[in-house]
């Protein structure tokens, strides 16, 4: 683990930068998981009394605006060279946290739909700026070899906190929890970003080192420029598929009280701790495996587990209908939490590995915004349409499971045919008998 090497070499600036990045992203992701994704729904439906459909539409709008803003900001950062300037990224991040603090503080007092829509739009713009600004700091602060581990720490910490500290999905509670961290955070970040510190200057040079700045999956094109190899688009597509499958399934399970109240909204702390620990274990597994085994294997596991989990829910649904007081097994949320952690680790680590300091802002915007947020936008609309159209729970989940299995199959086929495609591209004219690989 590179962090241990940095500690042995007493490179304290690098160690502090590492810790700063993990902390910042963990808090940011926790904020996204709780206040943005769950608190928004509570604010719209319970506090303001809006119909479900309009709240869901607002979520879709949030996702769409975030996607567009992230892409624009990512491109702007690349053109202006901000992608390679750590101090600029720090100041952008400070601006994002400041804006989010203000939005969080006013959220619980919103009572009118028009203000709610304006709040959602503002949150989306801020998120859109935040994604490229914060993700692009990976090349400044996290050694390439440790991207999996750092992503695991971020994922494990944020999901553990979300599972254990948010049994009550209320905007007031989320806002209070978030402000407790964000207010001191924005002050501290402001001091760091706008002051002159030798540590910051030292961190600002780290992206020039290959151990920080050079992604794993780059190749030189015909002009000698380092670019992400062609797997980048495949990963974008796969991450889109993962977010789509996850969101499409979970947005339906949210409205099945028997599954929510026995797991994510259970009254007992032990269940929350269990789910939190599973998230941490899943994150650590992914952190260790990332970069050390073929990434296709990890994607196969993710889609495979998604399919299995949804099939378990489908299998369980008739029993739940017949025995409404029977507790569903925790195997399903266990598998769900495990696979969510697996793909979240990939999401935090992978974009920087297709990037140089010049391209990280755009690649992070494409990856995070266009795969995650676009998938959320489309799946939210689809899940709502199916549910309000009266589609039964098990049928809904069958479709989700089928989609997961299709992606699984697609990866298997791509893997199987890859050697033949490579030979074709390299212009190997020899006649081959049979298909190898």
């Amino acid at each position, binding site marked *: 683990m590179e962090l241990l090497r940095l500690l042995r070499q007493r490179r304290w600036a690098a160690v502090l930068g590492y810790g700063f990045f993990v902390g910042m992203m963990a808090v940011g992701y926790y904020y996204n998981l709780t206040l943005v994704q769950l608190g928004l729904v509570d604010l719209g439906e319970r506090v303001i009394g809006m119909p479900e459909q309009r709240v869901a539409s607002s979520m879709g709008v949030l996702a769409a605006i975030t996607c567009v803003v992230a892409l624009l900001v990512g491109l702007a950062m690349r*053109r202006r*060279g901000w992608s*390679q*300037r750590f101090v600029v990224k720090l100041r952008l991040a400070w601006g994002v946290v400041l804006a989010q603090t203000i939005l969080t503080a006013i959220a619980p007092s919103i009572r009118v739909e028009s203000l709610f829509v304006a709040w959602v739009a503002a949150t989306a713009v801020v998120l859109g700026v935040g994604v490229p600004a914060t993700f692009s700091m990976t090349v400044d602060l996290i050694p*390439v*070899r440790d991207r999996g581990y750092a992503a695991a720490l971020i994922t494990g910490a944020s999901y553990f906190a979300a599972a254990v500290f948010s049994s009550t999905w209320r905007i007031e509670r989320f806002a209070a929890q978030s402000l407790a961290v964000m207010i001191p955070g924005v002050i501290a970040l402001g001091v760091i970003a706008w002051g002159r510190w030798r540590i910051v200057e030292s961190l600002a040079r780290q*992206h*020039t080192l*290959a*151990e920080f*700045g*050079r992604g*794993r999956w*780059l190749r*030189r094109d015909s002009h*000698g*420029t*380092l670019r992400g190899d062609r797997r980048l688009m495949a990963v974008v597509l796969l991450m889109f598929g993962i977010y789509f499958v996850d969101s499409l399934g979970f947005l339906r399970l949210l409205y099945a009280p028997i599954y929510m109240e026995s797991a994510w909204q259970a009254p007992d702390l*032990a*269940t929350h701790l*269990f789910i939190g620990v599973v998230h941490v*274990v899943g994150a*650590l*597994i992914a952190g*260790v*495996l990332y*970069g*050390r*085994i073929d990434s296709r294997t990890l994607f196969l*596991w993710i889609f*495979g*587990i998604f399919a*299995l989990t949804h*099939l*378990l829910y489908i*299998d*369980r649904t008739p*029993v739940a209908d017949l*025995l409404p*007081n*029977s*507790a*569903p*097994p*925790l*195997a399903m949320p*266990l*598998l769900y939490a*495990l696979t969510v952690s697996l793909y979240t680790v990939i999401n935090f680590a992978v974009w920087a590995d297709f990037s*140089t*300091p*010049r391209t990280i802002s755009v690649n992070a915007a494409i990856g995070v915004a266009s795969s995650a947020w676009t998938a959320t936008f489309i799946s939210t609309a689809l899940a709502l349409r199916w549910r309000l159209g009266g589609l039964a729970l098990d049928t809904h989940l069958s479709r989700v499971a089928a989609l997961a299995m299709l992606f699984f199959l697609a990866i298997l086929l791509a893997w199987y045919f890859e050697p033949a495609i490579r030979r074709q591209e390299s212009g190997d004219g020899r006649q081959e008998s049979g298909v190898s690989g």
Partner: protein
Amino acid sequence: MRRLRLIMLLIAALLLAGCGENGIAGVTLVTEGDHAFGPGETLRGALVISGGATTIPASARVLGPIYLLDGRLDLDGAVRGDVTILGGALRLGPAAVIDGTLNVGGGALDRSPTATIAGGENRGMGVALPDVRPATLSSLVSRAGWALANALALALLAALTAQFLPRPVSRVGMAATRYPLVAGALGLLAGVVVPALLVLMAFTLVLIPVAILGAALLALTAIYGWLAIGAALGRWLFARLNRRVSRAAAAATGTLLLTLALNVINLVPLVGPLALLAAVVTGFGAAMLTRFGLRSYAPPDDRAWQADWSRADWEHRPA
């Protein structure tokens, strides 16, 4: 051909070894209809209920575990083993006695206050901390005897495996000992997911034989990984002692020591079972990483791409 026959014999021996008192190879499956045990009737082996209604009266006994996947079970007799509910409905009558643990992973439970459950009740997927029961001399001697017999059997198996599959065993052992984190992570992932898949298969009823085969394959993989780690340990030990011995002897010695050591460590509450689990999942993961030893495993080499880096790659170039 001779090697193949020996391997088949090994597999058969393993399967026969499972036909112990708990009747791993003896399974009664109830899928539908009404089934009532007679007074005083004794069933040996596991009872798996995936439908229908089963009644075990007060004088009847089941000498093995019970798995309730679906359907209904009225239990008023004695069970020498664990009872696990994953679905369906279980009624524990006033005279019911469960010698093991009642694991409630789903379904409905109606328990009489006078029903006895010796090992306690586990709900959901929670991990039950092991009981630290007071040890008697006879129980310690008995446990030591079983541990030694187990270790000797595994040592023999290791010797045979190392003799007939030297390179695969070596590859698995190297993956487990050089990259224990990667092997352990993959083993843990598979160890959590694959059993869930097997349970889902079992729920389909039609795939129960496949699920049983899958469970057997899972166990064999874990044993294979264990033997490979033992073989690697044996090679290392004799290299340190500067002694040349045969592959089989090194594997047998290493596996014997590994098994005995972990049996001793296992006596330490919590830490022991965790250490044992870590060793098992690491071996299992190493077997998967190397495809049962058919290929070597090594993580990607970073040095080549890290050398390909220049100022032009990170400097800002205005448009």
